[in-house]
């Protein structure tokens, strides 16, 4: 499709559906007209509620039984051990006794998947960057069975209280919460085996959850976020132990915040390489978004997209740091 045609079509779609024009232009360039229309339609549909059973406090069987008695309909999520779609039939998932007791955490499927991909093991030392409000920290703690050490870093004072509350509610006792800048990790007295960087981003993938995002961000915002994401990822790469695993994720659709960032890291840090994610979900990452050729191994990363997977938009990339001197 010629640029002029794209612009014309984008102008019309943006006007009809309440988006900024540049966003639709980008979607058409990335996916074509048909998938862009599917995306727009999918963003008008509610995302299914999902929960993670908190095995630090109880068993899946117990929670499922109690919620089903209350009329909640549950469906397993195939690639997640403790993740379930949950239809609360209009009642608030956060108001139940079981939620107050910390038996489950209301969490998006892609967020649960990011931790599942990281695969933290008992005894590990794991770093969770930009940790608030604590969904991934508590998931990591759960997978480690409250052993080892989870270091959660959060800069925002106000978000800090929600992080601590969720740690208490979920009964995680292997965490250390630090207030600090995730771009500056040099003075950390630990070399983590695993790092999860779910980076603050433009949040374009969250349009199904928050329609204001159709018009709240500009390309300048995306570039700003990309710069910050790169800085955080560089800091994470530098502190990661040799042989360690780093999962980079965002809730952005923009390749500038996802594949471009990782591609640049692979060029600058040859000791880092992308690894295969063993479970089946989502679709492959892009290796030539907008016709720009990137590292072929980016096809091993994964995307969630509203029109393909019924979730919020998300990007997950698993990398490892080679052992020994590779320069």
């Amino acid at each position, binding site marked *: 499709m010629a640029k002029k045609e794209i612009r014309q079509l984008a102008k019309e779609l943006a006007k009809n559906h309440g988006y900024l024009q540049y966003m639709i232009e980008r979607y058409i360039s990335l996916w074509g007209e048909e998938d862009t229309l599917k995306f727009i339609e999918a963003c008008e549909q509610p995302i299914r509620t999902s929960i993670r059973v908190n095995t630090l406090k109880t068993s899946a069987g117990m929670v499922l039984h109690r919620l089903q008695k209350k009329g909640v309909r549950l469906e397993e999520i195939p690639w997640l051990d403790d993740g379930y779609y949950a239809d609360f039939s209009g009642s608030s998932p956060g108001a139940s006794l079981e939620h107050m007791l910390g038996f489950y955490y209301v969490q998006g499927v892609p967020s649960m998947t990011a931790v599942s991909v990281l695969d933290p093991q008992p005894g590990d030392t794991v770093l969770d960057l930009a940790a608030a409000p604590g969904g991934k920290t508590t998931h990591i703690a759960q997978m480690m069975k409250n052993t080892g050490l989870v270091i959660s870093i959060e800069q925002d004072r106000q978000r*800090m209280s929600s992080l601590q*509350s969720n740690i*208490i*509610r979920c009964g995680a*006792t292997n965490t*250390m919460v630090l207030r600090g800048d995730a771009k500056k990790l040099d*003075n950390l007295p630990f070399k983590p085996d695993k790092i999860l960087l779910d980076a603050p981003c433009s949040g374009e993938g969250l349009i199904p959850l928050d329609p204001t995002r159709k018009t709240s961000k500009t390309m300048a915002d995306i570039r700003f976020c990309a710069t910050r994401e790169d800085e955080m990822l560089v800091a994470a790469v530098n502190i990661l132990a040799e042989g360690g695993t780093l999962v980079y994720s965002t809730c952005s659709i923009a390749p500038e915040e996802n594949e471009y960032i990782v591609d640049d890291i692979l060029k600058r840090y040859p000791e880092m390489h992308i690894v295969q994610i063993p479970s089946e979900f989502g679709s492959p990452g892009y290796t030539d978004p907008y016709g720009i050729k990137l590292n072929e191994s980016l096809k091993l990363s994964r995307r969630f997209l509203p029109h393909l997977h019924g979730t919020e938009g998300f990007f997950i990339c698993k990398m490892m740091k080679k052992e020994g001197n590779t320069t």
Partner: protein
Amino acid sequence: MELVDPIDWGSVIEQIDIEFGAGVTKNLLGNRVPVTMSRGSTKIFYAIPTDWMSRLIDTAETLDIQFIGKELGSIDKGRFRLSLHILGEMTELTESCIIVSRRGAEAFTYGRSIIRESVLELNTSLVRGQRILVLNEDRECLGIASLSMDASKLTRMGADRLVAKNLVDIGWFIRRLG
């Protein structure tokens, strides 16, 4: 963050053990080390694995630690307040508890106190002013209350009389986070 002052720790042990039973504090600590952090006039106590201590001893001052390990509680104006973090463990360690009906449990998690008609079981040796765990019929801990009367007088009380004042409950998680 620093190792706990022995005098402070003595006070913590005394306050917990007197109300919840001898040895409770020792069991809560397990094989962890108590540490403390100050927030204004409040001192918060945590229990952390001993191997963390060796990693942190030289660097704790350079880190802005906000929370660590297992939060035991805090001392403010001399009074130790138990953290919600340890309620589940406390249930297994103490007889100082009250069991309430479903209706009483719901009211309690809304921040209300406990009245006579909600009480299903109460240890008759407990006394006025004593702090107790509040459990539902499934023996799940909903929070902590303070007895308003000697437990031995329970049977003489009217249905709507106050039995225990709510000090903290798990509904706080919703009220705090919205």
